[in-house]
């Protein structure tokens, strides 16, 4: 991986593929409670799409576009969302930490649990679980991309020092 990025062909193809991978990853996150997958898996897919951009365009260019600082804010927000959803369980519904307060009690916007028989399930049947999946997804996207980004940048820095 050169620091300036790869050839024009690779860059163009990355641009073409990126939205599709993004959509696929987001699909996995949002449908985590119905199909295989969830926050971590979908987040890893999205983060790998971001890593693809990093490889195609090089770490310096990517560092200019997005800072590790901003990613860490997203990461905190994701984790915060997750833990606050768990905390809401104490204050609402039955008053238990990690309670699924959206499927019962006064805040039951989201009806019932998914039908336990086989067949097609609705997306709004799992209460807080999809929301938690989204929170985890946010954290994983930001976290994994930050790791890859910082590592790429650090190796580039070491190379720079070695060259001198």
């Amino acid at each position: 991986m050169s620091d300036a990025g790869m050839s024009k062909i690779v860059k163009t193809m990355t641009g073409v593929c990126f939205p599709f991978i993004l959509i696929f990853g987001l699909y996995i996150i949002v449908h985590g409670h119905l199909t295989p997958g969830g926050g971590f898996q979908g987040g890893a897919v999205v983060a790998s799409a971001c890593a693809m951009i990093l490889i195609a365009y090089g770490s310096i260019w990517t560092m200019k576009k997005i800072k590790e600082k901003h990613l860490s804010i997203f990461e905190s927000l994701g984790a915060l969302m997750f833990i606050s959803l768990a905390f809401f369980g104490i204050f609402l519904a039955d008053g238990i930490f990690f309670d699924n307060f959206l499927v019962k009690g006064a805040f039951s916007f989201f009806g019932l649990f998914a039908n336990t028989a086989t067949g097609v399930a609705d997306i709004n049947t799992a209460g807080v679980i999809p929301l938690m999946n989204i929170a985890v997804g946010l954290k994983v996207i930001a976290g994994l991309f930050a790791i890859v980004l910082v590592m790429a940048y650090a190796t580039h820095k070491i190379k720079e020092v070695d060259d001198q």
Partner: protein
Amino acid sequence: MFEQILTHAPALAVAIPLLGAFLTPLVSKINGKLRNVFVVIITALTSFIVALLSYNILAHESVKFAPDLVKNGIQTYIFGAGSAGDPVVRIVFEVDGVNAFMIILAAILPLAAVIYSWGFMKDETGQDKYYTLILLLTAGMLGMMMTGDLFNFFVFLEITSIASAALIAYRVNNKFSVQAAFKYIVVSTIGALFVLFAIAILYGQYDALNMAVIAKSIQYGLLDKIALILLIVALAMKAGIAPMHMWLPEAYGRAPSSVTVVIIGTTLGSFYGILRVGFTIFGEQIISESNLEVGIALGWVLVGLAILTIFIGVLMALKQNDFKKMIGFAAVAEIGYMVLAFGAALATMYQDSVTGITGISSSGLTALKGGMFHILNDALDVSLLFLVAGAVYYVSKESSLNRLGGLARNMKYTTIFFIIGLVAVSGLPPLNGFASKLMIYQSTYEINPILAIVAILCSILLLATFVKVFYAAFLGPKLPKFENVKEVPKSMLIGMLVLTCVIIFIGLFPNLVVENIVTPAVTALQNASAYIGGI
């Protein structure tokens, strides 16, 4: 009010530091000072809840705040469903006497560390990440000490490993701290993976992850034996028992002092894991007539390892010239004393010829109490010494004892704290180290005099070690390069004072602590059936 908090206390004790950890980066975007206040408040709140929880479990029935919550000395908390849920398939926190004892440590150590870091970390960069990781470490430690679920234990173990490794490498410009962190993460990952392997074996056998459920149905077949060995040895490596202790002095020595204090808590959390596995999960199998020989053999192996640990720790500490590495080796020796007590207790198991009931003899019981008491004392004493070492590093930027000297002339309070730590850790009367070591000496003397002699001898060598430090760093003429050294900032002094006060309190009233905190813990430790009945 208290009852409301206490209902959720096991969950809150983990959730509040977690919430604090994730809020810290956002708060520190606003202001550095605000962040420090925020972190101290979060830690103090956690400590308060933990102390409340611990009090409610250990206190006598009539003075409890919420006696309904505690059944048989055990409070359970089922995540996600409350009392309506089936505890077998859900994540459960089960806090009994042992847990209530261990979390006292987790209440004191991070509080002292966080107050101390206010001054200690003043000039460092990346403090938001530092505080995030400290809070994460606290949450992981508390989770480890309260969970009633084996897999959850593994998860918290890994959380603490990752957070501590990142904190050990906090000073990335120092090559020694980076390599110490690498060694720590390799050792703890491999340990944790073997723990997971053992958990998987148990899960495959009994189709449960809940400790109580596994303990209820456990047999003592070949696979269970393998799981037992893997769990004990892997956790022993994480607890720093010789000859698997080599990571410990390096990790303790190279981490910033405030971090070391919290890592001591997690190391003792791993030690708690050994106790839980040995006495609760396999308790009814090990302490039973059919496996009496095996239990005694296990006890003697532990005693052998303990003697080795004490010996190596003390001898290496005597030779070290690095302040914090020396305390690290002393910490290894202190862990050896605990293992000695617990191993000796197992080795005294006997079968009553009349009733046919197997049990631990009365000297074994004293050993158990002494060992349990020593967990608390060791954590406090060693932590205080590390904080003093950090204070010395803070003023002199020097960790080698060869280049230190005459600091007592400028740092009165730090010197006093060091003397208190020295007296406590080397088991001199009247401080806390003596009380617990006395119990260990006496009980091991009744089991085998040689053990007690080795223990006392090594304690004397430990004193010699710290007298050397005291002489080399604090006494002697005022060195010209330390002419302008000043006493450390107030927050650091307060951090040390917190620990010192607890040490002196335990030292002056050992019976109070033993009767009210240690004895319930030992009773709970032996009473595996109560833990099983908690679910």
